[in-house]
């Protein structure tokens, strides 16, 4: 019984305090909010450690079981070790790991940046291939989507202006009028959903997070 009652009470109190202090930022509530935010920052910091711990355990298990593709886990450990060692050496040598001449920054600039940029850049190729396959005028709705996509795709780049100078204003109209109404509806819907879910959590109706 206590196993669930105590967390529910903590959730209720924290939720109510945060809501009240947001609308009444004056003493004593303002102070309470400040304290809650400090706790939040501390807990947030620890979640990063938790993340590292979880990743290390996950990959260590994969390596131990010699699962398929476990060499990716070896690369993970190498990356982790390399960034930790270069970071430590740079900190000790330069007093700041972010100094341009440090080994950590060399690792960051010539390994991490190209790898991350490559991963993101691959999107362009997949989007091109997916657009070619998906944008087919199969029915009225698909045709409307196709026409809108082509206009926006061309209107958002200088080549569109070169083709027809009215494409950029038409694109702006699509983005600011046609797109904005439904987008607002979605955002308001999400916000209302968040409020409803928060209330369910605060009032103890939603308890799945305890299991």
């Amino acid at each position: 019984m206590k196993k669930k009652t105590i967390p529910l009470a903590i959730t209720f109190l924290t939720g109510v305090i945060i809501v009240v202090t947001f609308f009444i930022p004056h003493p004593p509530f303002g102070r309470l909010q400040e304290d809650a935010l400090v706790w939040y920052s501390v807990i947030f910091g620890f979640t990063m450690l938790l993340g590292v711990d979880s990743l290390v355990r996950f990959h260590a298990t994969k390596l131990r079981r010699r699962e398929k593709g476990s060499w990716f886990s070896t690369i993970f450990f190498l990356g982790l070790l390399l960034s930790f060692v270069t970071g430590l050496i740079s900190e000790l040598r330069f007093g700041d790991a972010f100094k341009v001449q440090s080994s950590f920054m060399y690792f960051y600039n010539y390994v991490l940046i190209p790898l991350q940029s490559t991963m993101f850049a691959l999107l362009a190729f997949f989007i091109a291939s997916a657009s070619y396959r998906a944008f087919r005028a199969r029915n009225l709705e698909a045709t409307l989507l196709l026409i809108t996509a082509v206009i926006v795709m061309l209107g958002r780049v200088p080549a569109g202006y070169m083709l027809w100078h009215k494409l950029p204003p038409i694109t702006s109209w699509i983005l600011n009028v046609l797109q904005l109404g439904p987008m607002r509806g979605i955002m308001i819907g999400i916000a209302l959903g968040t409020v409803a879910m928060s209330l369910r959590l605060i009032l103890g109706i939603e308890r799945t997070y305890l299991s």
Partner: protein
Amino acid sequence: MSIWERLGKIDRRIIFLIIGIVVLIPIIFGLKMSVQISPAVQSAYNAINDLKPGSAVMISIDYDAASMPELQPMLIAILRHCFDKNLKVILIDFWPLGLPIGTQGLEQVAKEYKKKYGIDYVNLGYRPGDIAVMLRMGLEIRNVFYGDISGTPLDSLPMMDNIHNYDDIAVVVGLEAGSMGDYWVQYVNARFKQKLILGVTAVMAANAYPYVQSGQIEGLIGGLKGAAEYERLVHHPGFAHVGMASQSWAHVAIVIFIILGNIGFFVERRKGKRL
């Protein structure tokens, strides 16, 4: 299979190859394309341009290397604008892997304009805590950032003498590749009435447009095109202009592929009806 039917079944490797070529050629030859200024970027530019010299601009680096090609040119262009107008720049970071990128950009432009650290600009570094950090800065920046990126106490930096919270910051510029932009609007603009400008990746721009029309943000710089527009406004065409040529021709290539795909689709459908 006729040639028309084949148009509907182009091998994806051919698509990849053509996209690769149209992206690479402008980059290799440094081809640049002129861009038209959109109202959202013009508003962002005006919001900074109208500030008095000496006003403080806070720039939040909320991206990492994955979004660097889109957002870094924005950072460089905005920094050039700020230093050209003799504005004070405060750099903060909410993405741990974004800090080195932001620092490099700041140092590069500060050197270009011969600006001095602690007097013209300050780098506060990274702090975990997202919303908590944003809200606490509303009371006192020193409550969150006890020192700058090197640990130097903020009180020993002349520029920070009269800067304590959002009341002392003219504009916050959020360069976003995630959800931090929404937090800036929902918590900092809504609560502290802080003027905001958002620079976001192209895929996020559609989500950020409602904030422009509602007046919650002063301006929006969307994707590489937004960066190229800002570069044009500060009369310093750079990487975004080169990237714009690549993006431009890649979009044209995709549209051509879509047209070819539909030709193949219609031919196949007509043939199916006949049979």
